[in-house]
């Protein structure tokens, strides 16, 4: 396995309506690990994921994936959005959704092949959802919906997986099943990044953790990050200096970088 970090985030600042919610995030995620992005509600975990996946344009900084621009390595990356981000009443059954994992923007106009189908069935088997493949997606429980999303992600056959809160609304048994699946993937050399907000389980699940609270509090192997001092800092509230300067930026419509200045 190469030493290039799976994800390299450089000086990333991101805002909604001009107000920064992520400040100068700067960290690397190694390959072949199960990595957690952990922080309190509203700390910017989803926003960070969105910036990594190019769903938002950052105010400053950039993200490299396997040492490259996202566009060059998109086929190696799989993204699982938060479950609430879709309309589950959409007219589609479980198989339809998993097959979306086989869509390729370059071959958007071609048809589903038998190979695609086999891959989708295999993915459904791995999340234990094969028997539901003909069921309408609105008739699934929250945990089952989550597993359909993971099956779609598996069908993408990527090297890097980014999942936003895959354990929300999932019962303990399913959580264990999903976790062992993710561990399997890691053991096969895949990199799995997971947004997670439960501190209790984070310690046992992840090899590597990024602690977030509008700024990066810590980023490193779990044992190094899980100190009471760092946890207290992450969960101990916002920094007043950051909030106040963020308000100034929004109020004065001030840029975050000078004109023409690039983060190299």
């Amino acid at each position: 396995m190469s030493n290039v970090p799976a994800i390299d985030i450089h000086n990333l600042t991101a805002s909604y309506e001009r107000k920064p919610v992520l400040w100068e995030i700067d960290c690397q995620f190694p390959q072949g690990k199960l990595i957690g992005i952990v922080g309190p509600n509203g700390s910017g975990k989803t926003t960070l994921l969105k910036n990594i996946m190019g769903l938002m344009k950052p105010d400053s900084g950039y993200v490299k994936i396997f040492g490259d621009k996202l566009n060059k390595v998109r086929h190696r990356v799989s993204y699982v959005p938060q479950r609430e981000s879709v309309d589950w009443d959409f007219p589609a059954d479980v198989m339809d959704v998993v097959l979306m994992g086989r869509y390729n923007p370059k071959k958007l106009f071609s048809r589903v092949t038998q190979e695609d189908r086999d891959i989708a069935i295999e993915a459904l088997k791995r999340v234990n959802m094969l028997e539901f493949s003909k069921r309408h997606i609105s008739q699934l429980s929250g945990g089952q919906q989550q597993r359909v999303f993971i099956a779609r992600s598996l069908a993408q056959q990527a090297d890097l997986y980014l999942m936003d809160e895959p354990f929300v609304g999932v019962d303990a048994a399913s959580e264990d099943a999903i976790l062992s699946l993710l561990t399997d993937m890691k053991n096969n050399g895949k990199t799995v990044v997971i947004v997670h907000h439960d501190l209790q389980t984070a310690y046992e699940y992840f090899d590597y953790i990024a602690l977030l609270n509008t700024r990066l509090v810590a980023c490193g192997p779990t044992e190094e990050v899980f100190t009471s001092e760092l946890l207290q800092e992450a969960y101990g509230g916002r920094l007043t200096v950051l909030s106040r300067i963020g308000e100034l930026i929004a109020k004065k419509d001030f840029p975050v970088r000078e004109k023409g200045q690039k983060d190299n």
Partner: protein
Amino acid sequence: MNTWVLINAVVIALSCSLAGAFLVLRHRAMLTDAISHAVLPGLVIAFLISGSRNTAAMLIGAFAFGFICIFLVEFFRRYVRITDDASIGITFTSLFAIGIILVSRYTDRIDLDQECVLHGEITYSALKRMALPGTNWHVPQTFVSGMAMLFIVSLLIAIGYRGLKITSFNPDYATSIGVSVTLWHYISGGIASMVTIVSFEAVGAILVIALMVIPAATAWLISKRLPAMLLNTTILSVTGSVFGYWVAIWLNVSIAGSIAFLLGIQLMVVILVKVVARRLPLQRATK
């Protein structure tokens, strides 16, 4: 001749309802309301400049205003931070107002009037005929343009099926695999604008909305998968227009109004059946 009126209504219903399906799936149904009002000034201006019912000129005019509408909505929302629905409301009422003022100002120079804007002229759609190239058959112009539009809409949906589907269901995921959500938004909006423009003259502003939204919404309630939903949408649009036409002739009332209302009745029946079915314990056991 009456048969032609019905055939024209059905052809228009098919393309409108198919085009509307993806807007309904995207929860953008009210955008049809906006587009169908906003194209009016384009039609009138094209009319005034070209001095006749020149179809090409009207298409260009309407397209221009369709785009002005979408642009203004986006502009108000992004730069002045007016809420999404209010931007839609301000834009289309204003553009429609311009259209109505032009219509009443130049009422002598164009054969559009305030009523035609609302009702359309489906009754007269069979009058203007043209010969099919190479044959001796004379068919209504509206039928020819309607068929052409139906062909284009079906083709676009067949080609763009996956793109439309994935960007409607899960935009974030689509972006993550490199499918441009913005592009497909504009494609689905563009298809809707096109059918609006072509159908506007024949069926008027309101029936266009009804055709684009109601069959698709009804079909959504009874279909498990997207292909089934599209099929049901077309079936419901045909039954709605046939019943509507029939009722209109029977009661001697506005055809456009009657079709719109009958489409609404179909939806109500479907909801009632579903509500009753849900109450039946038998049904629950099988699900």
